[in-house]
């Protein structure tokens, strides 16, 4: 089948600085891909390359089967939404939506039809005669999405579209973008540094670091089977607990001598002999009380700090000499100084080679 967007062996250098290196990415028709990573990882650069706003140094870009590597952005069949909205400040919303079509010389009634449709989808009909300065942040971002919508394109590109909004609006618009995707079924490529946005929106997430895609997978896989230490540490809040140690057959021996059975762990490939490794356990995979008793590894621990978050509680303790965070229901009364039994759900944990940092 034909890919909606296909990136082949893409490289980009600014002088001697390599921003993207031999990057490959195939995106299916109608797929929602999120490029996720810290600032400076190359995710926005990659998006700008796809849009044609940056010239690539090597490699090819295909959109809807057409080689667009040398095409102007307007000829690539893309629409783009920017972080700062980038609305034309002196034009009304209606003109903002129609300006590109007008310049392209499209017939008037076709323009009107498209603007009306976009306005209907985004529910911005009452705003059409206003100037951007008189819109709220959320409304501006809708207009910005509308400007991509009227172009009637196959691929939507979002460059951190919600980063300028406050938390409440952000989650509202997030849902709306998801709804939009379900309704339009376009291919969408979405850049963000916010892992919640990535996990909630994406069909697949590409986690990037220094211009290289670390892992490309659906959110469930990314969260539960991170491919390396970097991904494991980047995704999840609070982040995964890591214990350094050694594995030998069916046991993991932490650096302080604590032994944990790892029979339940599913290795991605068979491991023989003993080697230095890192055990990663997410805070919600550390259990308390009765549930802990059923776990392959359990120990006594003293609670150091308790952070009630409302629906749940985060607690800080020490296991095997290492600070460990765990998450439990807020119904369980916990206080600093309490002694509790904690159990590690090793089957749902992750083991990484200490040397290569890759998943074992």
């Amino acid at each position, binding site marked *: 089948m034909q890919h909606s967007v296909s990136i082949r062996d893409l490289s980009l250098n600014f002088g001697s600085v390599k921003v993207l290196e031999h990057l490959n990415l195939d995106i299916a028709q109608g797929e929602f891909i999120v490029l996720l990573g810290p600032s400076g990882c190359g995710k926005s650069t990659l998006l700008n390359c796809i849009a044609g706003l940056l010239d690539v140094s090597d490699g090819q870009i295909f959109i809807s089967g057409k080689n667009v590597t040398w095409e*102007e952005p307007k000829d690539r069949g893309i629409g783009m939404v920017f972080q700062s909205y*980038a609305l034309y400040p002196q034009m009304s919303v209606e003109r903002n939506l129609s*300006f590109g079509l007008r310049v392209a010389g499209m017939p008037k009634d076709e323009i009107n039809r498209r603007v009306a449709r976009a306005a209907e989808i985004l529910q911005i009909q009452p705003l059409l005669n206003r100037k951007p300065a008189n819109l709220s942040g959320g409304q501006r971002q809708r207009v910005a999405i509308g400007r991509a919508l009227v172009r009637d394109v196959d691929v939507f590109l979002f460059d951190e579209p919600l980063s300028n909004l406050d938390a409440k609006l952000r989650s509202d618009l997030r849902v709306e973008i998801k709804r939009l995707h379900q309704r339009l079924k376009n291919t969408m490529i979405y850049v963000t540094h916010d892992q919640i946005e990535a996990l909630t929106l994406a069909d697949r997430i590409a986690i990037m670091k220094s211009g290289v895609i670390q892992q490309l997978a659906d959110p469930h896989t990314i969260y539960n089977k991170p491919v390396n230490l970097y991904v494991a540490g980047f995704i999840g809040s609070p982040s995964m607990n890591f214990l350094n140690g050694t594995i030998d057959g069916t046991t993991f021996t932490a650096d302080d001598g604590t032994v944990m059975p790892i029979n339940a762990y599913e290795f991605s490939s068979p491991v023989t002999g003993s080697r230095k490794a890192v055990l990663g356990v997410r805070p919600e995979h550390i259990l308390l009380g009765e549930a802990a008793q059923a776990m392959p590894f359990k120990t006594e621990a003293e609670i150091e700090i308790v952070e009630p978050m409302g629906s749940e509680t985060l607690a800080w303790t020490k296991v095997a000499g290492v600070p460990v965070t765990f998450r439990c229901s807020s119904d369980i009364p916990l206080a600093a100084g309490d002694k509790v039994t904690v159990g590690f759900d090793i089957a749902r944990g992750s083991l990484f080679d200490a040397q290569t940092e890759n998943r074992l």
Partner: protein
Amino acid sequence: MADVATQPGQGAETSTRPGFVQRLFLHNITAKVAALPMIATVLVIFVGCTAWTIYYSFTNSRLLPRNDFVGFDQYVRLFGTNRWNISITNLLMYGSMSLVLTLTLGFLLAVLMDQKIRFESAFRTIMLYPFALSFIVTGLVWQWIMNPTLGLQGTMRNLGWTGFTFDWISNPRMVLFALLIAGLWQGVGFCMVLMLAGLRGVDEEIWKAARVDGIPTWRTYISVVLPMMRGVLVTSVVIIGSGIVRLYDLVVALTNGGPGISSEVPAKYVYDYMFGGGNIGQGLAASTMMLVTVMIIMVPWAYLEFGGKGRR
């Protein structure tokens, strides 16, 4: 006493017991004393002197200011004077041409400079250096270049182009264009720097959005960027405009009002009557008219900038 002064930037209403008068003078007393030069300048010079000038422009002052009211006589005489009328016409003609050309060329050059060109800083240095020079220097250089016998015209004729004419400086009908060439030479670079700063201030994502929308570059400049630069444009108009009204040094150095009185300007009229002609009343009336001219430029601007939105 200075203890009364508590919080900077606030009246500190709750903690102050002293009355209004004491608060007016003693609150932040050191700051007020330190700002005395500014307060004095504002009250005595900018307000006081201006009021004095307007007031005495209605008197019959000649060698010394006299409190002898003659109503609008000075103004009637002013507008009955050929030299003043020529000055005003010159100012309008020169001013409108200079304003339009400075802005257009400044914007055009700024756009060219904005195209990620090489040697940008060299070009900028070349365009802006005349602005560092005195109008006197500018005027004298161009006076020499436009010298009919030994300057550009003479050179071209000697080189065989006998029909070449560049005698604007001694031609009453062209002398304003001579002023214009010198004035633009000095001012365009400055306008370009202002405009370039404005262009660079435009959000880069606007450019990206326009490219995705398929808007040609020139169209983006005209339809999107130029309207966004309203602030810079208005500021440039005000600065260039108030500079034009003051136009004096350049005329003195380049033409000294000549040939005849064909390149006289109001500022020179004022100076000559105040300090040369012994007719202070005329000078004051003429300078009041200059003030009126500036007000015509300034008041709409002030209204747009500070009035409309109720910003402070």
